[in-house]
């Protein structure tokens, strides 16, 4: 086995080793884990949380606003003097159905 091949084996074992120094997660008891937690749950946590949540608050408000702003749709059929009431829509089979 050449030296180069041995070095490749050694490198592969180091990468796959469970005791690698890169081992880190939010709840890990490792140096990187501690570092991660200290940088996550610091004085800026709530501000960052609010920033991440802000667009979701805006889209919920937008969805509710749109819900109440939806207009009645004018159907060309209705314009010809035929009123489309819900009873008729329920009785006529077709692609558009109403829930019952």
């Amino acid at each position, binding site marked *: 086995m050449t030296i180069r091949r041995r070095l490749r084996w050694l490198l592969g074992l180091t990468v796959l080793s469970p005791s690698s120094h*890169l081992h*880190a*997660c*939010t709840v890990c008891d490792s140096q*990187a884990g501690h*570092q*991660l937690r200290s*940088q*996550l749950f610091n004085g800026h946590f709530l501000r*960052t*949380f609010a*920033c*991440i*949540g*802000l*667009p*979701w608050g*805006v*889209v919920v408000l*937008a*969805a509710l606003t*749109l*819900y109440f702003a*939806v*207009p*009645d*749709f*004018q*159907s*060309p*059929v*209705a314009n010809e003097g035929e*009123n*489309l009431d*819900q009873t008729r*829509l*329920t009785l*006529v*089979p*077709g*692609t*558009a*159905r*109403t*829930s*019952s």
Partner: protein
Amino acid sequence: VISRTATRPLILAGTVLGIGMGGFVDGILFHQILQLHNMLSNWVIRDTLVNEQINMFWDGLFHSFTWLCVAVGIWLLWQAVKRPGVILSGKAFCASLVFGWGVFNLVEGLVDHEILQIHHVYQNGSHLIWDLVFLAFGTAETIFGAVAIRSGFVADVNSS
């Protein structure tokens, strides 16, 4: 006249579902597969393992919000289906999904990319053009969705 009480529940359900699914497209495609940006990648530069993991944490929170949105959307859809008199138009529902996706892209593009600048669409280059394309896509989806919702209901009602 197609009354709004017959259309609103389905539009709301489709829009909320579209917002959630649009969030998942952003999170899965841009954050995870392409890795163009992460949630805080303009504030916490992804140059170390810990910084990468900080971004991963906030990505997870972002995905939690998208999951909640989809869950609420499913509940709203269930309510719409059960409610008497609601027109169950497939075309209008699909258009609502597109509309919701557009609303998500517009709001996210304006709030996250431009106002708060917590990240940009493409973090490693000239970000303005990418941000503008993202906003333009969101605007096009919103307009197309709004027009298609109306025409979807009208077409389905007329064909019945």
